[in-house]
């Protein structure tokens, strides 16, 4: 009477090599982005592309779209907790001064660099 439903059988239309090629193109773009030296572009290519790449890997390689919905919800919930953690803690860690206190900006003298 137990249910052995397994929905992972319908992925043969996906060409994994094609996805891989797309991922590599995205990688090249994200490396090239900083060379334009426009910060907005760098951030968009670096992190925007990272999100797209992660989505592609999750969807096509991990077959997340073939899993029951609750798996996605579970993983998203964890991500939301990470963002919650960041949102609540960043105001403290990023703050460098308050009433009667200062968190000094520490600049370490660089070690001599050998090229």
């Amino acid at each position, binding site marked *: *009477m*137990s249910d*052995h439903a*397994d929905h*992972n059988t319908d992925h043969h239309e996906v060409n994994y090599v094609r996805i891989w090629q797309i991922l590599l193109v995205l990688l090249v773009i994200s490396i090239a982005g900083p060379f334009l030296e426009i910060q907005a572009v760098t951030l968009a290519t670096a992190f925007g592309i990272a999100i797209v790449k992660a989505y592609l890997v999750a969807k096509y390689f991990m077959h997340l779209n073939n899993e029951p919905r609750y798996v996605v919800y579970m993983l998203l*919930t*964890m991500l939301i*907790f990470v963002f*919650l*953690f960041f949102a*609540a*803690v960043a*105001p*403290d*860690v990023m*703050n460098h001064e*308050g009433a009667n*206190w200062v*968190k*000094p900006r*520490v600049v*370490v003298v660089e070690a001599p660099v050998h090229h």
Partner: protein
Amino acid sequence: MAELIQPEATQVDDAHAHHGEQSFWSKYVFSTDHKMIAMQYMFTGMAMALIGGFMVYAFRMQLAFPGIEVPFYGTVTPAQYNALVTNHGTIMIFWVAMPVLIAAFGNFLIPLMIGCDDMVFPKVNRLSYQIFLLSAVVLVCSFFVQGGGFGGGWTAYPPLSAKAAYSLTGLGSSLWLVAVALEFVAFLLGGINFVTTAMNARAPGMTMYDIPMVVWMIVIASILFMASVGPLIAGAVMLFMDQNIGTAFFDPDKGGDPILWQHLFWFFGHPEVYVVLLPAMGISMEIICTFARKKLFAYKTFLYTTFGTGVLSFTVWAHHQFVAGIDPRMAHIFTVTTLLISIPIAEMVFIYIATLYGGSIRLTTPMLWALAFVAEFMIGGVTGVVLGASGADIYFHDTYFVLAHFHYTFFPIAIIGTFAGFTFWFPKMFGKMMNETLGKIHFWGTIIPFNCIFIPLFVLGAAGQHRRVYSYENFPDLALPHFQDMRQFATIALLVMLGFQLVFFYNCFISWRKKEMDAGKNPWKSNTLEWVAESPPPHGNFPELPHCYRGPYEYGNPDREEDYFPQNLPA
């Protein structure tokens, strides 16, 4: 996947037939049977409780009679005092409450209550216990190295915990941290086992709402643990490196931030208290339904309220840091969320009361413990509301008021909850009944002294007595005679309470050693599936795995001759 689709074997004999004669080592030490692993966790947890209890004895004697040569311990130096209170807290939470409530009861009950033959990953289960045992050994070793055990509070705030020059316990601090980290790994492994087993391995016919509440509670607790411990594991790695390699994650002189540790710790620390609370609530609910002969008043409400509490528990953590220098706007937000979280818990207490109302109540020993859990926890809960208001907390933080609050929550959870579950399921675990008279003597001899210990501490806290101070002789406002009398009263109550625990151990011993297996399968006439198995259940649990036909609390069914309708009986 052809690998996995096997015909559902209900005959357990085939799967387990080849065991035959087992040596002492394979039966008791290296067992993969969930019931044996449960016993291992239970006994390790109880042994650690003795150590934690001995620590309380030593430092309470010091507080009550400063400078005294404590019998069986010696003089308590200030450094030892710090190590004692630190390790008392650490042990009670990580090596008593969690292994007993989650690992021991979870391991024993979950496969039995959902009607299967073992956990889904028995070898991972065994591994989790082995890692847990290693963590306990590492912790105990930390007391005997040079410098002694870590004394920076179970909260381990840097820079005290990060720099050996401050903590004076270089090796002890690192061993403490490694022990805690190993314990986390053990419970991550165990938690995955519990959640997967409860989700997947249920008896045919057992829907979501047919699962006994204690199983839900342990599963949700495991999920909360898994979701909250991650950042602290990262933080523990960072702290370990600060301690030993010279990094500066938490050192503001070099670009780090000590408040980051506090947030990493409490992001876990607050959900952690719900991690230990939920199993205790589940255990109490099972007992109350059985001995009131009543259905759980509002199963779905209770369940969804627990989900809500679990989610909310991730939004309250900085109430531990109101006076640590956090952004005051954050303090406002956390005050609101903290006060909000008292509502679902109150709701759950109402459901306990509604379940009891109109019931046919039998005050057996387990029932007394379960009722005491609800009553004492309520006191802890309402005093938490006082502390949740950031304005009040400015005064109360780090006083004994906080300490009394969390003992009125932790003691019901870890001690009362444990005794409730142990006295309730002892007949199932060992096939013999415990002595009711001794049980009741033990109960009253624990509860009355417990209140005598901690009510004076509320008073002392309100008077401004700071925590983690080795002696109040040099605090003129706190060294007043009537305050010292209260400290002594609390300590004597503690000695009385510790003395009554001997009654419990004696009861366990004589009950276990009884020749007659007088429990039978279902001495309490309870409705859930574990009572269908033999007492104690054999390897494989059920000769034929049960099907589930109804909910877990079908008491007082008018169509039945008996006043309960077990889950496994066809209609």
